[in-house]
């Protein structure tokens, strides 16, 4: 009998034999959706440099992906990624990290690189909580929710990360949930080929720190909730802001052409050399 091997197994670092993800975590769904996108584009992991920060989702590329991976300090992967892109403009730089890493401690780098519109793919796994440290409130935690650092309920308004990145000027912004793995793959295929800052927010379940503590339940219950709450951009356009409050708007939020920074730097260098464009 021949050995059964997962079709994407070749993308996994040979020295990795186990996962650190909790049972029911959304990381696996997203990891697989990312690898599928790369596979379906007939690309190789060597075409990419993966960068991650601190938090559970940062452990997706580090160490699982058999590629060049830079696992950085908390909040800074996009800033490290910018330097990598400058050094290897022909490679695809993909940042994979969480909502706390990218939108709390690293919020400044997120908005500024969206503004710069540097060619880069940023996948933000938004589980609305700090999972690794034991369920503290994040800037994405819904108002009123009890967490370990908000035992009487949060008293802060949450971020809409995708809208933040849109407002900052990214040329491609999309949002899906872990209920939509095929859509994630399709979107990522576009994001990878986009000349500009491509941002994908994935609403994902943390059954251990979020589900248990907030009463959202198991992984399956949370996925079911995503299915019920999800509404397409097109359908959402017909509803009022109030009607959308409990919904998750999914799909392509922005896909536009605008000057991309690496290309602009090439033009600047030509000027400095004294070469006519």
């Amino acid at each position, binding site marked *: 009998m021949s050995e059964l091997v997962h079709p994407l197994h070749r993308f996994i*670092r*040979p*020295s990795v034999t186990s996962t650190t993800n909790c049972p029911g975590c959304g990381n696996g769904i997203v990891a697989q959706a990312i690898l599928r996108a790369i596979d379906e584009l007939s690309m190789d*992991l*060597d075409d990419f*440099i993966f*960068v991650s920060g601190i938090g559970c989702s940062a452990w997706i590329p*580090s*160490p699982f992906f*058999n*590629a*060049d*991976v*830079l*696992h*950085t*300090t908390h909040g*800074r992967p996009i*800033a*490290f*990624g*910018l*330097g*990598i*892109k*400058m*050094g*290897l403009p022909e*490679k695809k730089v993909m940042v994979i990290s969480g909502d706390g890493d990218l939108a709390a401690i690293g919020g*400044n*780098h997120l908005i*500024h690189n969206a503004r710069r519109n540097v060619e880069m793919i940023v996948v933000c796994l938004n589980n609305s909580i700090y999972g690794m440290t034991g369920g503290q409130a994040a800037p994405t935690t819904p108002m009123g929710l009890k967490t370990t650092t908000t035992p009487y309920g949060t008293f802060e308004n949450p971020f809409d990360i995708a809208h933040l990145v849109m407002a900052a000027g990214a040329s491609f912004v999309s949002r899906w949930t872990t209920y939509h793995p095929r859509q994630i793959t399709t979107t990522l295929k576009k994001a990878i080929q986009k000349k500009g800052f491509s941002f994908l927010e994935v609403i994902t379940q943390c059954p251990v720190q979020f589900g248990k503590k907030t009463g959202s339940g198991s992984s399956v219950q949370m996925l079911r909730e995503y299915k019920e709450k999800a509404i397409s951009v097109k359908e959402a356009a017909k509803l009022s802001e109030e009607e959308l409050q409990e919904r998750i708007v999914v799909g392509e939020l922005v896909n536009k052409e605008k000057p991309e920074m690496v290309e602009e*730097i090439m033009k*600047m*260098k030509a*000027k*400095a*050399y*004294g070469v006519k464009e």
Partner: protein
Amino acid sequence: MKGKRVQTGKYFMMGNTACAEGAIAAGCELAAGYPITPATEIANRLAERLPQVGGVFLQMEDEISSIAAIIGASWTGKKVMTATSGPGISLMLENIGFAVGVETPCVIVNVQRGAPTTGMPTAGVAGDMVQAKRGSHGDYEIIALCPSSPQEMFDHTVLAFNYAEKYRTPVFILSDAFVGHMREEVVIPDPDQIEAVYRKIPEPGTDPQKIKGFLDEDVAPMPIFGRGFKAHVTSSCHDEYGKRNLSDLSALDHFVRMLSNKILKHQHEIIQVEKNYQDAEVVLVSYGAVSRAVSMAAMRAKEEGLPVGTLRIITAWPFPEEEIESMAKKAKKVIVLENNLGQLYPYIKAAAAHYADVYFLPPRVLGEIHDPENILKKIREVIP
């Protein structure tokens, strides 16, 4: 001259400008930074000159991203630098530790200013001497050079790039507002007179699983990105292959010791001091801008027939302990002169006090240049 990496010639040049020219002459391809007094002229010059030689200067959103971007670029094989002052270094410290932990060549220039906190930006105070060594959390070694003239801003920057490449480590230039803003003669040599060191990288085509890219006391080849080395680079505790280990304390011990030993084992190749204390009974120990006033005072003292010599520290880190010790064995009195409240003084005292009496002399007012007369007064006071 436009477009030439090495601007060979004799100039009347500002220290900060010389620093930028030194970086480009050493092969710097990417710099990132954030405007700050009194270091901004370095960024200005790099922004103008780097694109002329095919490089780029990125003005970032803050100093945290500046150091992050250069570390990222260094992992693509580029020679990189950033320049800032104390407040910027304070913001960079976490990522400086990262650069140490994953063994990333990079040059960090600190044109020190009046501190603590926002302090006095245009005042030259060497207040960040220990921060460079101990500012980031945990035990680690660092290399730091202390230029005392615009010429040394050029020379030390070239040397800093070479140390960074050779030992795969961040290297500090600990300048200050005096030296950074000073204008003086700077001679830029011919390109073939400038040594340029490049980091070792693994042989192309090496099986990624067999690459020992980290934690070698004799400096592991750097598995830079984009070459198919499939490098797993994490600042978390890891082994020679880059594999993370967060449970085994002996792995942590190995991680910390190997990183430190990489510098300490080679300290004799790194450490530089300038000695001029033959037959001296009183030795003046200083570095950076202060050493200029010190050499003036020593000259006058000798004219008076006083047995005075000098020792100038060029590499503050690794600390030149043996050099201080052997000097103290010959001297009777050691006067340490710094433009701060005594930052290297405890280290110098620890190495010298067993053999000689050790005194400390700051300027009368912090941020002021030491008055040679004042130094002479101290010499007469302590002389046996």
